[in-house]
C-alpha cells in the first residue's frame, strides 16, 4: 500500500518533467541540435538500440569489474586494518587523502600506462568505488559489539575467527550502504574512463555524438547510463536482501 504510493510519486514527477520538456521544445521551436525533444530522443533510442546495447555491455563490464576489484581490495584492507591498529592509523588518513585527488586529472595517466583497453577503465572505476566501500566497511566493523567479541574470546577464538564471525557480519549493513553508493559511482567512473580514451563504451558513443552535435544521441546515451546505474543499484539491493535476511526480518518486526 505505502510502497505503491512511494512508487507513484516519483513516476508522476518524471512524467510531468518530460511533458514540460516536450511542450517547451514544441512551442519554442528550438533547434534539435541545441535541445532535442523527448519524443525525438526516444525515437533515436529505439533506432540506436542495438548499438547502444553493445556499448552498454562494454561499459557495464568495466563498471562491474572495477566495482568487484574495489570491493575485494576494500575488504582485505578493512580486515588488515582491523587486525593491526598500527596499519589503521597509518592508512586511514591516506585513504581520505586519496579521495581529494580529482579522478579526471589522474585518469589520463592510466591511459598512458595501460593503453586504450578495458584495464584503465577498470582502474578508474575501482578508484572511484574503493573509498565508499572501504570507509563504510571499516566503520561497520568498528560498530561490532565488544561484548560479542569478548564472548568469542572466552570461547577461544582466534583473531581471524573474531573478524569472520562477528566483525564482518556486523559490518554487512554498513558495507551494503557503501556498496550502493559505489554502485551508482561505478557506471559514472566507467563513462569518465571512456571519455578520456577507449575504443568502445557509452562514454565513447557520447563523445562521438556530442562532437557531431547529435544531441538526441547524447540524451539517449544519458538515458541508458541512468538505466544501467539503476539496474546495478537494484542488483545490489537484491544482493543485500539475500545476504542479510536477518536484517530485513528484524526491521519488519520493528514495523509491526
Amino acid at each position, binding site marked *: 500500500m505505502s510502497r505503491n504510493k512511494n512508487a507513484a510519486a516519483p513516476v508522476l514527477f518524471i512524467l510531468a518533467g518530460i511533458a514540460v520538456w516536450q511542450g517547451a521544445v514544441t512551442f519554442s521551436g528550438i533547434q534539435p541540435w541545441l535541445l532535442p525533444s523527448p519524443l525525438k530522443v526516444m525515437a533515436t533510442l529505439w533506432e540506436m538500440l542495438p548499438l547502444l546495447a553493445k556499448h552498454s555491455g562494454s561499459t557495464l563490464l568495466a563498471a562491474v569489474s572495477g566495482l568487484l576489484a574495489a570491493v575485494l581490495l576494500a575488504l582485505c584492507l578493512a580486515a588488515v586494518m582491523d587486525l593491526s591498529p598500527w596499519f589503521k592509523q597509518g592508512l586511514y588518513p591516506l585513504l581520505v587523502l586519496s579521495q581529494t585527488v580529482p579522478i579526471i586529472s589522474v585518469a589520463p595517466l592510466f591511459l598512458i600506462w595501460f593503453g586504450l583497453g578495458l584495464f584503465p577503465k577498470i582502474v578508474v572505476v575501482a578508484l572511484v568505488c574503493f573509498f565508499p566501500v572501504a570507509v563504510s566497511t571499516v566503520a561497520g566493523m568498528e560498530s561490532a559489539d565488544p*561484548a560479542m567479541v*569478548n564472548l568469542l574470546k*572466552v*570461547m577461544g577464538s582466534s583473531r581471524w575467527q573474531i573478524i569472520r*564471525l562477528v566483525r564482518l557480519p556486523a559490518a554487512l549493513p554498513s558495507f551494503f550502504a557503501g556498496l550502493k553508493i559505489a554502485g551508482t559511482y561505478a557506471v559514472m567512473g566507467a563513462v569518465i574512463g571512456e571519455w578520456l580514451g577507449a575504443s568502445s563504451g557509452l562514454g565513447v558513443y557520447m563523445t562521438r555524438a556530442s562532437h557531431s552535435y547529435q544531441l538526441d544521441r547524447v540524451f539517449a546515451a544519458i538515458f541508458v547510463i541512468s538505466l544501467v546505474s539503476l539496474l546495478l543499484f537494484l542488483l545490489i539491493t537484491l544482493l543485500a536482501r539475500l545476504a542479510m535476511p536477518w536484517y530485513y*526480518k*528484524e526491521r519488519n*518486526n520493528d514495523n509491526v
Partner: protein
Amino acid sequence: MAILELVNLTKYYEVNGNRLPVLDGISASLGEGEFVGLIGPSGCGKSTLFNIICGLVKPDGGTLLLDGREGGSPRDVVSYMPQKDLLFPWRSVLDNVVLAREVAGENREAAKREARSLMPLFGLEGFENSFPAQLSGGMRQRAAMMRTALARRPVWLLDEPFGALDAITRKRMQRWILEVWERFKQTVFLVTHDIEEALFLSDRVYVLTPRPARVALHLEVGLSRPRSAGTMTEPEFLKLKKRLMEVLE
C-alpha cells in the same frame, strides 16, 4: 578437589585518575557439580569477578586456580553466559547455539545434530531456523543458555541470566534451569541480586558487600533436592532468607 578456586582476588579500576577499588580480597571455591550462588548489591563487582575468571580482565592481586592449577587457560574450563544474551542477530537459533563448537573447529553438522536433539529440553523446538529478533525474552535466554551448555565446559558462569525477565517467566525459568542442571551435572556459578533465586537454586551462596566487594557471608543452603515451588514456603527456606536479608541490609 575444587574445579574453580579464587584466592584473595583484588581489583581496582582507574577512573579519572582515581583508584576505584572494586574487589577487596575475594576468596571462594567451587567443587565439581556444585551449584553456587553469588549475590550482592548492584555495582559491587560481580561481573568484574566473572570477567576475571574468564580471563577477560586481569586481577591486581590474588590467584585463580582452574582445575587445581594456577595459570590454566579459562577457555578450557569455563563457559560464560554474559548479562546480555549476546545472540548474534545474523545467525539462526541453531547456528547461534553451536557457536562454541564451531570456534573449536568441530564438525558443524554433528554439533547441530546434538543441538536439535536438545531443542525440546530448552523449549526451542520449532524455532531452530528463527532469528533471535523473532524470539521472546525468555526464549532468548534459553537459547543463550543452550549455547553455554553446548560449549561443553565443566564450569558455567551465569551472570544474572534471568535479570531482564518478568517475574512469572523468571520463576518458571528458575525451575527449568534446575532440570537442565540435573541433566548436565555441570558446576554452576550463578550471579543474581535476587535472594529467593539464590536460595532456591544453590547448594551454597556467597554474599558480597557493596563495592569494594568482600565476602560478607558464606552460606550453606542445605535444602533437599529436587526442589519445587513448595520449597520457597518451607520454614527452613524462610529462615535462610531472613538471614540473607539481614546481611544485605
